[in-house]
């Protein structure tokens, strides 16, 4: 069971309760919530916020591919995966991504959650423009996209 969405912050908020609602199941004994937030320091620069840009169609496609691959790799029964990523401006401490997974057992949930975030980092076309205390801003360099 999979839910994916890009949250356009000009229209709506990213909310943890949507993840809780989606993955709730009496068949699962373990739930993991990974929440990515904007931190205050990067490369010795004081960060005040990040603007996220995304290729929406490719992002959703990559989430679906990662989910399908995880099913083949782990073969967990009755797992649920919820992935939402924001686009737009995010202030310090605010949420950029929620990955929620529910599995039968805790080891499965940890493995699945870790796999999803690591694959997103490698192959999901999202870009960050950091904004700094001195009013400068810059696009982060990133890594070439890994195609599936």
């Amino acid at each position: 069971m999979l839910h994916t969405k890009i949250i356009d912050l000009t229209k709506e908020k990213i909310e943890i309760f949507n993840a809780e609602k989606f993955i709730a199941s009496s068949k699962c004994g373990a739930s993991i919530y990974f929440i990515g937030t904007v931190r205050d320091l990067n490369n010795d620069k004081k960060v005040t916020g990040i603007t996220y840009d995304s290729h929406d169609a490719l992002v959703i496609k990559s989430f679906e591919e990662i989910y399908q691959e995880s099913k083949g790799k782990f073969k967990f029964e009755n797992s649920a995966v919820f992935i939402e990523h924001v686009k737009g401006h995010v202030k310090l401490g605010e949420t950029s991504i929620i990955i929620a997974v529910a599995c039968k057992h805790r080891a499965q949930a940890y493995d699945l959650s870790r796999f999803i975030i690591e694959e997103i980092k490698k192959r999901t076309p999202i870009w960050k423009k950091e904004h700094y205390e001195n009013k400068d801003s810059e696009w982060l360099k990133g890594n070439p996209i890994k195609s599936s």
Partner: protein
Amino acid sequence: MKIKLELFGASREFSEKNYLEFSLKEKSSINDLRNEILSFIDKNFKGNNNFKKLVESSKFCSEENNIVADSYKITKDQKIGIIPPIGGG
């Protein structure tokens, strides 16, 4: 052929719009498009080295939302996305 190049990430600095437009010869490849973009940078940004590196390290996405190789032949007018190195999450 007319190509509408959709800009993402750092490539958004190439234009105040969200896209650039290029005219390519029939059966041009992604590599030809990349060279056109590099010429655009030479002409409009005095060969800005960071911009050129960005183009050289970018991938491209077809209208069907597939990442395509440099040898991919563009056969019709279409939108193509430039996919600079990524860093989400």
